[in-house]
């Protein structure tokens, strides 16, 4: 899982011509030497930036309200729009030096808060805020040259769609929204290399979109944990589970059949076993979706996805067993039998492992 090879190792093993060798290493050297660029920043810096910008913008918005600088809806909307545009413009400095990223993100968040409040109070409904939210997030997503701003937009767009769905009569459409996120997550990661090549002129798009989709998907599924916490009751969670299951099947097909050449019968047998084991959790789509993210993380050797998947799997499994309408005794029997079943699968896998080692 952990990459241990160096650039030299990989280039040497690839049998490159002298020209290619020189041009690839020269290109990498020039890219890696631009140390101020956001592309080269370790992810811890992005986390610090998001935390700092979030608290900073909250405090700034507090000061604007207390100082009565924003009193009318119009002033909130105007100032909000100005801050968002300034945030986008400032993000263009990221290409060379991303030190101003926290300022641009702060302004962007502040602008979004003001704009949201302004439109909300003027239009008097959450639906209008969500429509405006989709428009604003799309502008930020397309316009800002910042990983963090695009990443937040990718997560907020589905949240706005959710707001619209929940304020309409067709709130069962939630399943298709989550399903779409699930399919998009698998497609974007399975097409990682092709997308990278296609988006070579727009390097700021892939990373925030790919990670934002997965995190947004896992977060949005939290609404399936307990319906009582939310304003709408959604009952047919098996629809979401089914879409996630199809996404998982597609992912397994890509990874096992296309990449590793696994036989079709073995593949379908694997899919059937997974379906049988996961069928009791059909009403908790978080379980199967988290599993899908874990598989995605492993298939792509991506530790961030793997960690996210494991973390959310724990949350959804706990919620699944917590919400089972059974006595503790029945719950414990279910848990222990599931455990025994999994250990049984482990023994089968151990036998297969031996066979693979022999061949």
């Amino acid at each position, binding site marked *: 899982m952990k990459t241990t*090879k160096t650039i030299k190792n990989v280039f040497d093993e690839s049998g490159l011509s002298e020209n290619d060798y020189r041009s690839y290493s020269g290109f990498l050297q020039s890219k890696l030497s631009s140390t101020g660029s956001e592309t080269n920043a*370790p992810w811890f810096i992005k986390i610090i930036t998001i935390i700092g910008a979030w608290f900073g913008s909250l*405090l700034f918005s507090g000061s604007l309200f207390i100082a009565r600088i924003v009193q009318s809806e119009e002033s909130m909307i105007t100032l909000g729009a100005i801050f968002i545009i300034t945030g986008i413009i400032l993000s263009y400095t990221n290409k060379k030096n991303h030190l101003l990223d926290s300022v641009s993100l702060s302004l962007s968040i502040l602008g979004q808060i003001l704009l949201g409040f302004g439109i909300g109070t003027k239009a008097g409904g959450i639906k209008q805020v969500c429509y405006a939210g989709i428009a604003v997030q799309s502008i930020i997503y397309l316009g800002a040259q910042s990983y963090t701003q695009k990443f937040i937009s990718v997560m907020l767009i589905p949240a706005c769609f959710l707001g619209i769905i929940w304020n309409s009569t067709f709130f069962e459409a939630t399943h298709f929204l989550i399903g779409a996120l699930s399919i998009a997550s698998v497609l974007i990661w399975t097409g990682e290399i092709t997308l990278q090549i296609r988006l*070579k002129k727009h390097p700021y798009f892939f990373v925030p979109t790919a990670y934002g989709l997965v995190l947004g998907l896992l977060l949005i599924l939290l609404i399936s944990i307990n319906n009582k916490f939310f304003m709408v009751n959604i009952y047919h969670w098996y629809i979401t589970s089914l879409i996630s299951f199809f996404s998982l099947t597609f992912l397994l097909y890509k990874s096992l059949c296309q990449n590793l050449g696994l036989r079709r019968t073995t593949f379908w047998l694997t899919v059937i076993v997974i379906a049988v084991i996961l069928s009791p959790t059909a009403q908790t789509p978080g379980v199967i979706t988290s599993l899908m993210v874990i598989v995605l993380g*492993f298939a792509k050797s991506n530790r961030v996805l793997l960690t996210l998947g494991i973390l959310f799997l724990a949350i959804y499994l706990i919620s699944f067993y917590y919400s089972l309408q059974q006595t503790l005794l029945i719950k414990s029997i279910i848990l222990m039998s599931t455990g025994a079943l999994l250990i049984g699968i*482990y023994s089968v896998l151990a036998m297969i492992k031996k066979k693979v080692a022999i061949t």
Partner: protein
Amino acid sequence: MPDSIKNEKFTRKIIYLLAQMETMSVDVLSGFYSKAGFKPNLKSWISFLSKFVLSLGILFIVSGVIFFFAYNWRELHKFAKLSIAGSLILIPAIIALFSDLKKFYAKLSLLAVAIFTGSLLAVFGQIYQTGANAYDLFLNWAILITGIVVISNFKPLWFLWLVLINISTVLFYGQIMWIWIDPYVFISLFAVDTVALLIYEYSGFKKNPQFESRWLPRILGFAAMSSMTVAGIIGIVTDFEEPGYLFCLILAFISYAGVIYFYSRKVYDLSLIAVSFLCIIAVIFTIILKTSDFTSASIFFNGGLVIVVLTIASAALLIKINNAWKTQI
């Protein structure tokens, strides 16, 4: 190949950078992707699935047992209860005893033994109403599993042991000394986590391959620094009514300095430096709030400004440390 990039790891970032080349094609990039080890083979898939289902299976069984004990089965005789709890320790213990302890399933069996030891103690306390505090339970649990932890050489088990020691420390002050929020509680937690961190880093520094992974020292470092930061912030807010909090604040700054020095010069770990920067921002922000006496309206603006400025400064310093480290290697 230029020296500056020769030893650079071929991470996902390198793939993304290479994709930006005008002449780069999908085939060449896919080749690099496979060569770098981003595409697991069948053996890795089976190995991953085995570990995954085994870990999940044992976790399910352990939680099933805990649920079983939580269920108030009055019909069962106390002998039966203790027998069940005892045999639950025995089964994984026998598996571990007759296995190579380097194997993953043996390590998981030891983890199960350690967890079931806690449930046996809980059942014992429940049956005989020993009058023991929760502190006694956690401390005895930690003491009893120490041997298993040492021989296991399994980090999750070390993590469990350290969690038990931390809980015992808090409960000792709370249930025995009758103090819950006190400088001594924070200092003790700091001492426990710092000692563990120092041992880990010392062993790692001696090039012991078992101490290569970074998740445990990161958690320990985070726990140590955050305990002192919280204590320092309490001290600032309460005007250091308890002099011990001043000591905590001093210790906090010493730990930040130590972390920044050690993880930028000796062992490269930017995450702990980032945590120390976040703690410094939190302390400075609290000092500013305190000096304005929490009343002034301008506090929001000044506070926001301070946070954004400190964030920029932290990012700049982190980039500088990152670059300095890269040129070193």
